[in-house]
């Protein structure tokens, strides 16, 4: 009995998704369409058709990186809600490097732009990290507020100094063609960014599993005081976690520019940074599961358009379903073993069962 529940609990994210899709089907019904038809169109489009898969992979690139950017600091007990801002700053720095660095071989330039994007994102994450680590300013509020600042900085840059002269809409000059990321699926927009994202997820998983940094992070997250006694600098760990996270967010923005848009746009991210939060929750802060959760969310996002065209349900229903996923995942957290009434109930029951078993001594007076 307990084993079965434990087994089901392992898949709690799957249950959360199922529950969200079920509640979401009421929303689709509310909008006057058939939910089953809508979901079939969505998942078929996103995961089985060639171009659909291509567009899923395009969306996966920023989502995997954004998920990692939330996951890494979360290990140390820090909430990085500022990924959206880090994406914007990364894209800004990368575009600057792409447009204004002196001529160099294409691959080197891509590398330089990526590095620059990582620095941009890391810089944006460093500010709340230092404020948190050294001045104990709540990192959640600061990262949230900084998102709005970053979005406005990019809007300013692309509507002012970096604006292409004949642009009808605020965007920058196009980056040189030598910097376009290679595509991984021919004839689609799917670019190398998704591969880099997955590789980084594996690297971070390995570091969490086998590296000292990963161990340090979770020690700080689980018990900062114990970490301090063990000689770990909690402050430095927090700052480092944010810098790594910011670099991931920065890369997400970088590859949106180098791989997809080839320019820096005003408001180019439809909230990938916030999706990163959803992904991290869904993945239980495990970098490998981040890839799976990002695939799922990218599929929802790319399938939403297909569903809208096929069945006529507004694509924003997917945003609502994403929100529902988070709520159900959060609810799942309540049923953690050993902590809740539910767990206590199971424990007492199991103890009672053991006491009743013959030969255990339970049936004899002490």
């Amino acid at each position, binding site marked *: 009995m307990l084993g079965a529940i434990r087994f089901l609990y392992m898949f709690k994210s799957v249950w959360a998704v199922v529950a969200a899709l079920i509640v979401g089907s009421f929303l689709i019904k509310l909008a006057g369409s058939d939910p089953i038809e809508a979901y079939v169109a969505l998942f078929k489009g996103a995961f089985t058709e060639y171009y659909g898969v291509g567009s899923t992979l395009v969306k996966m690139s920023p989502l995997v990186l954004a998920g990692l950017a939330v996951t890494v600091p979360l290990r140390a007990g820090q909430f990085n*809600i500022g990924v959206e801002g880090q994406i914007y700053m990364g894209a800004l720095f990368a575009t600057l490097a792409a447009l204004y660095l002196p001529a160099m071989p294409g691959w080197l330039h891509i590398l330089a732009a990526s590095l620059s994007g990582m620095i941009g994102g890391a810089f944006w994450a460093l500010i709340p990290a230092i404020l948190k680590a050294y001045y104990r300013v709540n990192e959640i509020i600061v990262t949230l507020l900084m998102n709005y600042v970053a979005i*406005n900085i990019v809007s300013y840059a692309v509507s002012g100094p970096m604006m292409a002269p004949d642009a009808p809409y605020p965007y920058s000059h196009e980056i040189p063609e030598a910097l376009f990321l290679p595509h991984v699926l021919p004839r689609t927009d799917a670019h190398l960014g998704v591969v880099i994202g997955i590789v980084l997820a594996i690297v971070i998983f390995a570091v969490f599993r086998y590296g000292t940094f990963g161990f340090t992070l979770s020690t700080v997250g689980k018990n900062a005081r114990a970490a301090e006694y063990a000689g770990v600098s909690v402050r430095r760990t927090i700052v480092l976690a944010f810098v790594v996270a910011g670099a991931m967010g920065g890369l997400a923005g970088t590859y949106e520019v180098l791989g997809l848009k080839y320019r820096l746009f005003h408001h180019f991210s439809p909230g990938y940074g*916030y999706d990163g939060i959803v992904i991290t929750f869904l993945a239980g802060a495990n970098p490998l599961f981040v890839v799976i959760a990002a695939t799922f969310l990218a599929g929802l996002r790319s399938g939403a358009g297909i569903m809208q065209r096929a069945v006529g349900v*507004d694509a924003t229903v997917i*945003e609502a379903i994403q*929100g529902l996923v988070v709520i159900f995942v*959060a609810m799942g*957290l*309540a049923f953690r073993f050993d902590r809740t009434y539910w767990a206590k109930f199971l424990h007492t029951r199991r103890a009672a069962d053991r006491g009743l078993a013959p030969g255990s001594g339970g049936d004899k007076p002490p």
Partner: protein
Amino acid sequence: MIEIFLDPQLLTDFLRTSLRLAVPITFAAVGGVLSERSGVYNIGLEGMMLAGAFGAAVGAFFFGTPFAGVVTGAMCGMLAALILAVLGVSLGVNQIVTGIAINLLVLGLTSFLSRVVFGAQANTLDLEGFRPLAIPVLVSIPVIGPVFFGQDALVYAMYGLVPMMYYIMFKTPWGLNIRAVGENPRAADTAGVPVNLVRYACVLGSGVFAGLGGCFLVLSQVFLFSENMSAGKGFIALAAVILGRWNPIGALLACLLFGFFDSLQLRLQFLNPDVPHEIFVALPYMVSILALVGLVGRPTPPAAAGIPYRREAK
């Protein structure tokens, strides 16, 4: 620039705008104070505000009166808060996680539902909102009069709310219970205070207030609902809770400060059309961050904030 402060007419307009920009965040911040004083972190203010704004638009749209909008808006804010109460108080889920979840859920849900309810017209809708209601005599005081007494019903409601919350929180047994629950739930429980009941009431109340902030956005400022229209105001309100030291009057003062800078940035935009307005738009956010950093002394949040209470837990 300086003439704003010299010309009485300009000064009146400027202060009036400052106040109006401060009102929605003040509602949310007072809600935040209430909830955090009872020991429940409320990162979900942003979502509750957005839910309130959506509810206000729906109510005003279907009943054609802003008062119905206020009622539905407050109820929607409360519904969003109910999630925090159930998950964060009863089920003991991390309150920050729950708050973030609320923000994400409400953002998605309202974007979708607004298209279902209003269709494509959501952004062109012209809802029946509140009109300014001058208070006779008082309104004729120069400068101060039109600023404070030429406002609409929701602003007057805020005037009432802040001192009322201050009084309740610091001068009544209810307030004592709330603060006790937020500081030391075990002691409060021992003394016979129903800890989780108090928390439920406070969280739901904070949802109502944040919802009213959202109502103000729709019914007094823009007269339509648009996607993500709370746009970070809930987070500024959270900063105001900290700046105001978990005190309704302090929160009001912090919000007036943000309103002042927000209004200032609007003026600066207007006066410097050649400077891109984005720089000014970011100003209130930067002021919030700087204010959080530059606080004199260390703010001490209620001791039990963020920790779910379980009777049998150690």
